[in-house]
C-alpha cells in the first residue's frame, strides 16, 4: 500500500480493546492512530514498545510490530530496538508507575542518551492495573489504597525530570484534547532524539477527575495555556491573560491592566537550548499558574545516539585493517608451531 493513502483504521489491530469504558487511554489510542499515517513510515517499520500497566497494553491495539515487556523496562527494550536498527520508528508507551517509579532510572538514561525514540507517558497519577495505589506523580495528600491517610511524598514532575536529564524534547497534552494530541505527537515523532510527551490521562476507576481542575470545560481555558513556538504566551477564555518574565520569575498578568500589552509577554521559544525557561514553563501548576500544554521544549540535538553509534562504527571500520574474524584472530602477537 502507498504510504500516503494509509488511514488511521489501517493501523488498528484486530484485538479487542480492553480498557475500562471512559478510560482516557481510548482517546490517546485514537490520537496515535490518527498520527501514524502522517508519519511517513510503513507499517513494518514502526515498533511500539511498552512496559506493564493498563497503558502498556497499548501495543496490542496497533497493528505494527509491538513488544509488551516487563514492568519498568520499556525504555531499555526500546533503546535496544532502535540501536539495533536505527531505520525503525520506535514508540515507547509507559505509565507514571512504569516510567517514573520502577523504570525511573531507565527513563532518565534514555533521555540523557538522546536515543531517537518517541516516548508517550500516560500520566494518570495512579497505579491503574494494580487497582489504585499511589504513584510517583500522585499529588501530595492523595488518598489511595496504599495511602489511606494521604500520601506524604512529593510528586515528580515529568517535565522537570526530562529537562534535568538534558532532554531535548518535552511536550504535554491531555487525553480529552485528541486533536491537539495528534498534532503534538507528530511534532514529537519528527524530533531527532528522545521525545517525551506527557499525556494527562484520566483513570475513571481509581483516580477520576484528578485533572478535573484543568479539564473541566467551563474553566479549562483559564487554567491551561497552549504554547506555540514563536507566539506570545496568551491564554484565557477571553484571551486576556498572559505570562511575563520579571525578576527571573514567570508572572501571570492581565492584558490591558497596568498598561500591559501583548508586546510585554513572553514569546515561546521551544528551540532554545537554554533550559531554564522551559523548566519554569513545564513546572507551572494550577492554581498559581496555568498548566502548559503543547511543545514546551524541542531543541534539535546535533545527532541522536543511534546515529552517533552508526557513524562511529563506520569511521572505525573504514580505518581498520581488520574486517573479518580471520583478520582479527591472526592480528597482533601470533606464532607458528611447525
Amino acid at each position, binding site marked *: 500500500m502507498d504510504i500516503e493513502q494509509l488511514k488511521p483504521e489501517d493501523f488498528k489491530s484486530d484485538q479487542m480493546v480492553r480498557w475500562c469504558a471512559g478510560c482516557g487511554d481510548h482517546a490517546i489510542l485514537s490520537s496515535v492512530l490518527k498520527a501514524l499515517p502522517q508519519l511517513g513510515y510503513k507499517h*513494518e517499520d514502526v515498533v511500539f*514498545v511498552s512496559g506493564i500497566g493498563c497503558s502498556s497494553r497499548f501495543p496490542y491495539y496497533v497493528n505494527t510490530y509491538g513488544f509488551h515487556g516487563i514492568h519498568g523496562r520499556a525504555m531499555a527494550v526500546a*533503546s*535496544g530496538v532502535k540501536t539495533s536498527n536505527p531505520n525503525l520508528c520506535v514508540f515507547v508507551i509507559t505509565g507514571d508507575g512504569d516510567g517514573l517509579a520502577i523504570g525511573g532510572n531507565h527513563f532518565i538514561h534514555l533521555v540523557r542518551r538522546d536515543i531517537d525514540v518517541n516516548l508517550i507517558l500516560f500520566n494518570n497519577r495512579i497505579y491503574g492495573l494494580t487497582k489504585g495505589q499511589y504513584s510517583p506523580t500522585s499529588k501530595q495528600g492523595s488518598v489511595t489504597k496504599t495511602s489511606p491517610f494521604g500520601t506524604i511524598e512529593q510528586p515528580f514532575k515529568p517535565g522537570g525530570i526530562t529537562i534535568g536529564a538534558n532532554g531535548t524534547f518535552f511536550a504535554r497534552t491531555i487525553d480529552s484534547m485528541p486533536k491537539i494530541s495528534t498534532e503534538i505527537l507528530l511534532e514529537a515523532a519528527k524530533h531527532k532524539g528522545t521525545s517525551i510527551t506527557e499525556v494527562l490521562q484520566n483513570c475513571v476507576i481509581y483516580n477520576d477527575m484528578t485533572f478535573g481542575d484543568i479539564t473541566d470545560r467551563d474553566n479549562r481555558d483559564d487554567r491551561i495555556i497552549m504554547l506555540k513556538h514563536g507566539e506570545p504566551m496568551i491564554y484565557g477564555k477571553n484571551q486576556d491573560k498572559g505570562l511575563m518574565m520579571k525578576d527571573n520569575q514567570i508572572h501571570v498578568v492581565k492584558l490591558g491592566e497596568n498598561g500591559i500589552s501583548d508586546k510585554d509577554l513572553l514569546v515561546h521559544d521551544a528551540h532554545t537550548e537554554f533550559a531554564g525557561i522551559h523548566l519554569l514553563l513545564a513546572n507551572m501548576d494550577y492554581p498559581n499558574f496555568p498548566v502548559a500544554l503543547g511543545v514546551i521544549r524541542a531543541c534539535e540535538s546535533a545527532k541522536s545516539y543511534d546515529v552517533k553509534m552508526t557513524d562511529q562504527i563506520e569511521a572505525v571500520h573504514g580505518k581498520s585493517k581488520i574486517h573479518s574474524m580471520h583478520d582479527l584472530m591472526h592480528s597482533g602477537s601470533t606464532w607458528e608451531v611447525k
Partner: protein
Amino acid sequence: MSKQAKVIEIEEVAIRFSGDSGDGMQLTGTLFSDTSALYGNDVSTFPDYPAEIRAPQGTVGGVSGFQVHFGHTQINTPGDYCDVLVAMNPAALKANFRWVKPDGIIIYDVDQFDAKNIEKAGYKSDPFEEEDVTGIQLISAPISNLTKESLKDIGLDQKSILRCKNMFALGIVSWLYDRPLEHAVKFFNTKFAKKPILVEANTKVLYDGYYYAETIEAFTSNFKVKPADIEKGVYRSINGNQAVAWGMMAAAEKADLQLFCGSYPITPATGILEELAARKDLRVKTFQAEDEIAGICTSIGASFAGSLAVTTTSGPGLALKGEAIGLAVMTELPLVIVDVQRGGPSTGLPTKTEQSDLMQALYGRNGESPVVVIASSTPSNCFDYAYMACKIAVEHMTPVILLTDGFLANGTEPWKIPDLNDFPEIKVPRVERDTKNWQPYARDPETLTRTWAIPGTPGMEHRLGSLEKMNITGTVSYVPENHELMSHIRDQKIQKVAKDIPPLEIVGDEDADLLIIGWGGTYGHLVTALTEVRREGHKVALAQFNYIFPLPSNTSEVLGRFKKLLVCEINLGQFANYLRMQHPEYPYRKFNKIMGLPFTVKDLTEAIVKNLED
C-alpha cells in the same frame, strides 16, 4: 657464559611473580609466559590481583601476583604450588609463602625487606624465621639498588627508575630458565615507541638482571624446559573473556547477524564487554547500560529487532537479570547470557573464582522458566562454547546461559587459531518475506522452535509480550489448558536441544571403579589430578560436563558404568544435587572446596585416592 653453571633439563616449572599492585607483576608474568609460549612450551597462567585498586602500599591486601606454569609436557593448570616465588616485598612473601614448594626457590628484593615493610606485611621479626623455610633456596637480591645503579646515568627521575625494577626480576628468572630476552625487548619497542628513553631503561635493566643472575654464585645451575610436542599451526595466547567475546563474534559472522551486547561492567566479566566495545571494525554494537536489567533488556530489544544479542555479567548481575530472562523465555527470542562466576553471595569475592551460580542459572527465575545452560572448561574453549551458545540460542529461539568463571576469564593459554570453516553452520530461523499465513508461535514439529519475524519485514507485523501466549497465534491467553500446554512446550523445546549436543565422553580408564565428575572450569585441575593418580597405578576416569541443561543424552548410561561417582566442584555441591535430581538412580559422593580459589591438584589427588579406597 662467564661462569660454568650446570644446565639441568626439567619437564615443567611454575613461577609466581608477586609484588605490590604498582610493581608491574602482571606485565612481568605476561612477558615471561609469552616468551615461553613463543619458545614452544605449553603454558597456563593465572593472575591473582587484589579487589582493591589502590590498597595501601606494602600491605598484604595490595599484593598482586601472576603465576606462569610452562612445560615440555601438556600443561592444564597454572600449577598449585610454585617452584619459584619472586617476592618484591615482605607482603608478597606473606601472601604467597604457602604456595611455595618445599624444595622451591624464593628470589626476593632484599632492599624492600626493611623494618617498616616487614611490619606492614604483618611480620613481627625476620620473615625468614617466622616462615618455615627449611629446604627452600633463598636468593637475596638487591633488586631496587641494582636497578638504581643500572639507570643512574640515564636521565630518569627516581620514581621512573624504580618502576623498572620488575624487569630486573624478569632478567633473573629469564636466566634461571634459559629464556631468550628478544620478546620483552620487542615489546618495549612497541609499547614505548614514543618514549625511547623507556625502551632503553627497561632493556638495560632486563639485561642487567640477566647478567646478575649469571654472575652471582647463588645459582649453581640453570634449567632448561624443552619445547612441548604441540600440534602444528598458528597460535596466539588467549584468556577466557577474550575467547568468549571472539566466539560470539565468530558466531555472528557465521550466521551473518549483527552482534549486539547490552551490558553493565562487573568483575570478572567486564573484559568481555571491553573486548566487544573495541571491535567496531567488525561492526559489533555494544551498549553500556545503566544497570544489568537495562543491559539484558536492551539486548532483548535488539534480539526482537533481529540482532544476535548477548549480555554479559557475573553472579550479582545474573540475579538482577532474572525477570528479563523470563521475558526472553516467554517471547522465545534468541539471547545469550554469559555469567562469569565469582565468589558469592552478595558482593562476595569479586576477584575470586567459584562455581556457585549453577542453581541460579538453572532455576533463579519466577515461573517454570527453562533455559539452556552450558559451561566452558578451559580459557580457550570459551571460544567454542560461546559459539555453541549463540548457535543454540538462534537455532532454537531461546535464551542460553553460558557459565564461565573468574579462573577461566583471566587465565591464559596458547590457542591454536581455528579455521572458521570447521565450525558448524548456524541456521537462522528467519521468516522470509513472502511467507503466507505466518503465525508467531507456530513451531517446527521436530525442535518445537518458532520462527523469527524481524521488524522491517512487511506483512509479518506482530506483537510479542510477557503475558502468556496462545499456542500458535501468540496472542494473549489466560486459558488454563493453554497455560499447561505452553508450559510443557517450553520445557520440551529445551529438552530437545539434547539432540544437538555431543555425547558425554570420559577420559582415563574405561574399566575403573571410580568416575570423577566435574563441570565447567575445573577441567584442567581434574585432568591433571587424574593423570597423577593413574601414574601412581590407580584406575580412574573423568567425565567433565559442558552441557548442563539439557544433559547429554547418554549421561545415565555413562554414569551407570561406574561403581563410585565422585562429583568435584567449587561450591557446596550444586551439580551433585542437580545430578541427584536428574538421575536419582545413582549414589553420588562429593568433593567440594569453596575458598575463592581453583582446586589444587594436591587436594584432588588426595580426595581421589581416598575415594578409591573407601
